[in-house]
């Protein structure tokens, strides 16, 4: 290559943009979280008082609690459902691609659309509860979405609906990568279908489990759109997640530094899950730039 600097030159706009707008901004927000900013950024440092305030706020704690509950249910149910769907579809189904398309299409939708649809579906006055009433079961109640204690579960339902198809696609790819002769060997060795799945197939699905966990976990932490559209954070603050907290405190309550601190907490949460994955990918992908 004659021009040794050309590759670097070509990379530089992106490097600049990503460097500034991702890592520069992370640093900025991080710094902000230690300042006394309220409506506008204020560069005077205020030590760790924002974090102290953060962890003294019950709204933040309940946001974290909600996230914990939401993320756990969301991840576990999505993985179980996704894996089940993948195994079912892998049974040489006719019209396999139709079923796959049906399970996967929610991924094409915006969370706002999903939230809107489920919001009314689960609304007691026109949705599920009312429909069942009209069918004759007068005593049926399903007002979770209006119930402070139960509303978070409606978010789980909508989120699982949206992304199980994706988990299914991941597991399906994993299933199809399993050597068929190994399965034949197991049949000859006397293993029945159930055993083949539990002893041979599922243990080999490790990469699928890891990938879906990383992606589901990070999506759970980032969840914002769905909550806003489905419950608006409510009733009251019953479905606040840290992402909602951050937005509210930064833009509505004019406590920017506290909002920044909550964003930092979110970043740390994601980093814990994602950094090991990123490092593994880095090790596996040395390319010509080792």
């Amino acid at each position, binding site marked *: 290559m004659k021009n040794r600097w050309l590759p670097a030159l070509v990379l530089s706009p992106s490097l600049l943009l990503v460097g500034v707008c991702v890592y520069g901004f992370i640093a900025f927000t991080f710094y902000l979280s230690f300042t006394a900013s309220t409506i506008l950024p204020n560069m005077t440092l205020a030590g760790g008082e924002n974090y102290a305030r953060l962890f003294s706020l019950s709204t933040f704690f309940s946001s974290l609690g909600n996230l914990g509950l939401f993320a756990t249910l969301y991840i576990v149910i999505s993985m179980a459902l996704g894996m089940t769907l993948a195994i079912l579809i892998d049974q040489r189904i006719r019209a396999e691609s139709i079923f796959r398309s049906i399970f996967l299409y929610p991924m094409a939708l915006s969370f706002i659309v999903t939230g809107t649809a489920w919001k009314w579906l689960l609304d007691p006055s026109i949705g599920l509860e009312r429909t069942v009433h009209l069918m004759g079961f007068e005593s049926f109640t399903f007002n979770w979405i209006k119930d402070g204690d139960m509303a978070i579960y409606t978010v789980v339902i909508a989120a699982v609906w949206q992304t199980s198809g994706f988990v299914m696609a991941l597991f399906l790819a994993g299933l199809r990568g399993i*050597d068929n*002769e*190994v399965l*034949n*060997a*197991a*049949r*000859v*060795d*006397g*293993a*029945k279908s159930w*055993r083949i799945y539990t*002893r*041979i197939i599922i*243990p*080999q699905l490790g990469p699928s489990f890891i990938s879906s966990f990383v992606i589901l976990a990070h999506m759970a932490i980032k969840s914002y759109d769905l909550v806003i559209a489905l419950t608006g954070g409510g009733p009251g603050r019953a479905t606040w997640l840290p992402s909602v907290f951050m937005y509210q405190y930064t833009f509505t309550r004019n406590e920017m530094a506290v909002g920044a601190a909550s964003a930092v907490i979110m970043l740390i949460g994601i980093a814990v899950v994602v950094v090991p994955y990123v490092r593994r990918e880095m090790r596996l992908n040395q390319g010509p730039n080792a």
Partner: protein
Amino acid sequence: MTSLTIENVYKQFGQTKILQDISLDLADGEFLVLVGPSGCGKSTLMNIVAGLEEPSAGRVTLGTRDITYLPPDERDVAMVFQSYALYPNMTVAQNIAFPLEMRKVPKADRQAAVQKVSNMLQIDHLLDRKPRALSGGQRQRVAIGRALARSPSLFLFDEPLSNLDAKLRVDMRAELKKLHMRTGVTTIYVTHDQVEAMTLGTRIAVLKDGLIQQLATPMELYERPANLFVAGFIGSPSINTAEASVDASGNGACKRNPSVFVLIPYTSTKPLFLAFVQKTWSLTATA
């Protein structure tokens, strides 16, 4: 008696005929080799005997049991695959013990069997490794060990040596022969390599296009091939052929060189091929 009988087995996929009227009779302890070019149906036949596929017609009997439609695990048949098909998430010991586990053999007995088999195959130092940490030859022994551990009535080998390098292949061939002499288990062995077939088998079945071309001992195949295909397939270098015809007076003539006359005690109106193995001929000059 664990003799295997295959009677009039057919296999068809839609219009494609994979196997046509295959009949074989194996004596107890026999080592039968199925040999033929790719696409001849030998793997399909193996799968049918193993229970991985069902025949379109026909019957398979092992000993006194009709196993034609039995699932693989009820057949008491063990198989060694071309790619070895070891369970990647299990250790060597677990791999070998797996079929015993499936048959609910108690742990102590399983461990004893694993020891015995791994000693015999000299893989006892590898018991805690996973398949990906093994060489091709080692994996192959584990695959054989897994099949052996069950003391089955029938062994099936599906081109087990194809993925090994040349030297290893020769070594393993000798080992397999020794193993068979030691265990005496009835065996069907599939290969596309006729040298392997000739060295290993007590009898050989040559397949082409789903039909058995000839079923005989190695010497018979070599000296008396039943047709042109078998003649061309067996023997290295391959047999010499030349077209010939017979005239009314019973004098055969070799077309390639009309001045060579061969007296054949054979009359036929159909075109003939003359096939001869080098060493059976000597030329004498006649004036």
